[in-house]
């Protein structure tokens, strides 16, 4: 086992999780097809201890693929993931994998298909306890079962029920309870509230903040909704077509979005009376990332695209406290154009 200390890069402590140049391509089409879907392309991502990072983007932007890569459901086609300084490539034995899966839990989007319908609710939690915390005896397992269900606000009375008897919010809490049973350091939550009622949504969002504050868990919160990202996250990472287009501290990114795509996302949740006129015609069609060439992937939807955008892929560069991958953002000319437009739309 490699000691994390040895891998710590100079300057700053090693983050809990660090991905470098993370890439995942899928071959699509028939047997002889040369088409490659670039689901995730060269993503650098860090998650620190006790931090909630919101990964934001629309359907098809590759956010779920990232969660699956981090959960080791998919293997990356390129790049490295380091967890506490250990490369995930080096985790090969069953023991190592069990260790990693115990450290990193996952909560899925659809609480209606994430549970085995023939088992009672307690089954999944108990199974996790048996697999990952074998040292517990039956009585301890039972008390741990009760502890995790209480910590997600689920009455223990419900544990003997079957999934079909539960509401969506209850099921999503079970999802978190299952993940929590592992005593994870990191929970990957893939759109955990998008299928829930609004009244319950707040509860699950608060639960995530609570888990960070009380249990010291870090979370990767995947969502397409900037408003809920703002509510829970310390840092926001915006993805488009498999690449990160903007990242930075939540308030900074939302108060002054630099990338045109972040602006589009923001205008979709804002009041229509303040909607961004630059994106009035956007239909929200997800990008096609099959064999993408050079150039900015957002250029076809971008009202500010210039010549360079068609030939050169923009790389992330710091603007203010954020990192932005855009040729146009931050240049004086567009900034004036953007603010003028904003002023006129108010």
């Amino acid at each position, binding site marked *: 086992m490699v000691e994390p200390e040895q891998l710590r890069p100079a300057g700053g402590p090693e983050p809990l999780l660090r991905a470098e140049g993370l890439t995942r391509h899928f071959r699509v089409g028939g047997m002889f097809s040369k088409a490659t879907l670039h689901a995730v392309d060269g993503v650098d991502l860090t998650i620190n201890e006790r931090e909630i990072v919101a990964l934001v983007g*629309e*359907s*098809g932007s590759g956010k779920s693929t990232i969660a699956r890569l981090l959960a080791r459901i998919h293997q990356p086609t390129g790049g490295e993931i380091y967890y506490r300084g250990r490369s995930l490539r080096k985790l090969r034995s069953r023991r190592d994998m069990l260790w990693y899966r115990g450290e990193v839990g996952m909560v899925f989007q659809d609480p209606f298909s994430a549970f085995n319908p023939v088992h009672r609710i307690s089954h999944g939690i108990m199974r996790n306890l048996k697999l990952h915390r074998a040292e517990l005896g039956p009585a301890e397992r039972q008390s741990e079962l009760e502890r995790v269900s209480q910590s997600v606000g689920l009455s223990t009375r419900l544990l003997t029920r079957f999934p079909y008897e539960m*509401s*969506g*919010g209850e099921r999503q809490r079970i999802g978190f309870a299952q993940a929590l049973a592992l005593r994870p350091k990191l929970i990957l939550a893939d759109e955990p509230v998008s*299928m829930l*009622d*609004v*009244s*319950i*949504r*707040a*509860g699950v*969002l*608060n639960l995530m903040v609570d888990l960070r504050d009380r249990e010291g868990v870090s979370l990767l919160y995947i969502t*397409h*909704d*900037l*408003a*809920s990202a*703002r*509510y829970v996250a310390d840092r926001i990472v915006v993805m488009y077509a498999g690449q990160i287009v903007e990242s930075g501290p939540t308030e900074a990114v*939302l108060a002054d979005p630099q990338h045109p795509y972040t602006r*589009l*996302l*923001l205008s*979709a*949740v*804002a*009041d*229509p009376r303040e909607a961004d006129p630059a994106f009035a015609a*956007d*239909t*929200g*069609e*997800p990008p096609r990332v099959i064999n993408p060439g050079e150039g900015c992937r957002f250029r076809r939807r971008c009202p500010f695209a210039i010549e360079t955008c068609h030939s050169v892929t923009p790389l992330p560069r710091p603007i203010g406290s954020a990192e932005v991958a855009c040729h146009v953002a931050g240049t004086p000319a567009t900034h004036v154009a953007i603010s003028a437009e904003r002023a006129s739309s108010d």
Partner: protein
Amino acid sequence: MSAALLEVDGLTIEYLTATADVRAVEQVSFSVQPGEFVGIVGESGCGKSTMLFGIAQLLSPPGEVTAGRVLFHGTDMVRLSAGELRHMRWRDYSVVMQSAMNALNPMKSIGAQFRDALQAHERISGERIRERSKEVLALVGIDPAHLSSYPHQLSGGMRQRAMIAMALLFTPQLVVMDEPTSALDVVAQRSLMLKIRELQERLGFAVIFVTHDMHVVSRYSDRVLVMYAGQVVEAARTDRIFEHPQHPYSRGLIEAFPTVSGPRRQLTGIPGSPPDLAEQLSGCRFRPRCPVAFDACAEVEPELVDVDGADVRCLLYGGAATVSEVRSDG
């Protein structure tokens, strides 16, 4: 109100099961004017989808309309035979279901599904079918080339648009939509809602739109009905309900959302969950979750009362009826 396109009058729907009769919708009355956009909001389990099915006459046993009428241009749809209803469906009113992935046939191309609907209602030439199919696809902003596409080849947003295109094949006067946007991301959601609103203004059909997302209706509907535990708890014009929500439940729904601007405030949501309708309920149904409940709420079942132009079911505004009165009818 005589010109109303649809008039729902005292609609009560029950699920008659072996163990209990569940009254999922109780005494709901409202009307929809031609070209109006009515939003129906509430949590899951509040009876909003059941009511929608009751209106569209799509209930299947054990669900049954046990009281009330649904008048479409004065005709009570509840009493129509299956044959008469089949004649009206698609043509006079159509339904857009929540999950387009499940509502479209995965084995048939979009064009073939359009053809089925068209042929079910009139003798129509192949050429006319193609023409009309292309027209409706163009309406919703999909390239007509997708007529030969299968549902899995379309994105979620496009599938929902295709469903809406299908609902417009005969340009009905009423389109009933059950959470068409809930499976979409925010950008596609906004674009779909703008499309629905635009088509509605252009073609003049009325929309009944069911959602749990207050924010979706806040921007597009003319009027909002808030449902709780099978009853309407507040009904008012949209701007009115958002600026001055009267019922504590409406207020809770509006405040359950985080915002992208302004101060960050703690969200409480609405603690608890809707009551089990199979149980005998007394007093105000929202009482166990209500932040402003008082003693009388436990005993007196509130009725809908007019509060400055909004219908509100809450004792804060008067509106007391005795428990027995409401329970014994039906």
